[in-house]
């Protein structure tokens, strides 16, 4: 129905961007009183825009079936590091392609890309969310919110205070 590239951008890239921007907007709305979080949100939005731009710039040179795998990695890595990983994948892909053919090379590339995303995403999550999470917990402790019967009650009270 659509040319392959057009379909990819319509069904993958644009919905992903819309979801991310909706997430960032919600984050800004609900965490407005905390200026640090707003700054982080803008930084995240800027980072995502840069990654998408980088992805689009490289899309002219890479083979079609491997673009989305690259995009997965671009979500969690800075462009320079991501280029190094994608370059390694590309180099080994060409090796396997020469020895065993396209199907096996494509299978190897995709399994490697998918298996690589998890440790990278986990490292990214630890680096980006751990400090704000510790900050929120410390703030909650300082406000005396954790001195309650259950953590659910403390969480509800924390959420209520953030929103008010």
């Amino acid at each position, binding site marked *: 129905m659509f040319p392959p590239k057009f379909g990819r951008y319509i069904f993958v890239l644009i919905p992903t961007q819309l979801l991310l921007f909706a997430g960032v907007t919600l984050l800004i709305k609900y965490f407005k009183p905390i200026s640090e979080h707003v700054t982080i949100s803008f930084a995240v939005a800027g980072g995502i825009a840069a990654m998408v731009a980088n992805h689009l710039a*490289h899309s002219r*040179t*890479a083979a079609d079936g491997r673009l989305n795998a690259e995009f997965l*990695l671009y979500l969690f890595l800075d462009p*320079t*590091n991501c*280029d*190094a*990983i*994608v*370059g*390694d*994948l*590309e*180099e*080994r892909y*060409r090796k396997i392609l020469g020895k065993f053919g396209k199907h096996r090379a494509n299978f190897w590339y995709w399994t*490697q890309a998918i*298996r*690589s*995303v*998890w*440790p*990278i995403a*986990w*490292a990214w999550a630890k680096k980006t969310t751990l400090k704000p999470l510790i900050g929120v917990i410390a703030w909650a402790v300082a406000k005396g919110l954790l001195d309650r019967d259950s953590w659910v009650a403390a969480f509800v009270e924390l959420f209520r205070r953030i929103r008010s």
Partner: protein
Amino acid sequence: MAKGDNLGEFEQLILTGLMILHENAYGMTIHEKVEELVERKRTVSLGSVYTTLDRLEQKGYVRSWFSDPTPERGGRAKRYFEITGAGEKALKKSLKVAANMVAGLKEIGGVV
């Protein structure tokens, strides 16, 4: 020795790979070498190799730099890695512990 100075098994594998590869140590070759060292008995992803290398760099056991882009990699740069003096020291310490374990098991006619 602080707890953070101890090396995990995968960190030992990566550092061993770096020592073997010497000047030709970048993502793909390190990945291939680690797969060779584990005799393909366990799956190793390129992502886990990179995250471990980043962690080792933060600990000061590894240093890295980028090369110029090459056409066989679709115009992308290579990230080269090199083991530092502290890294070599930490690896030797870990291997000594492993050697002690092997010796201990041999004494009782154990599993090795």
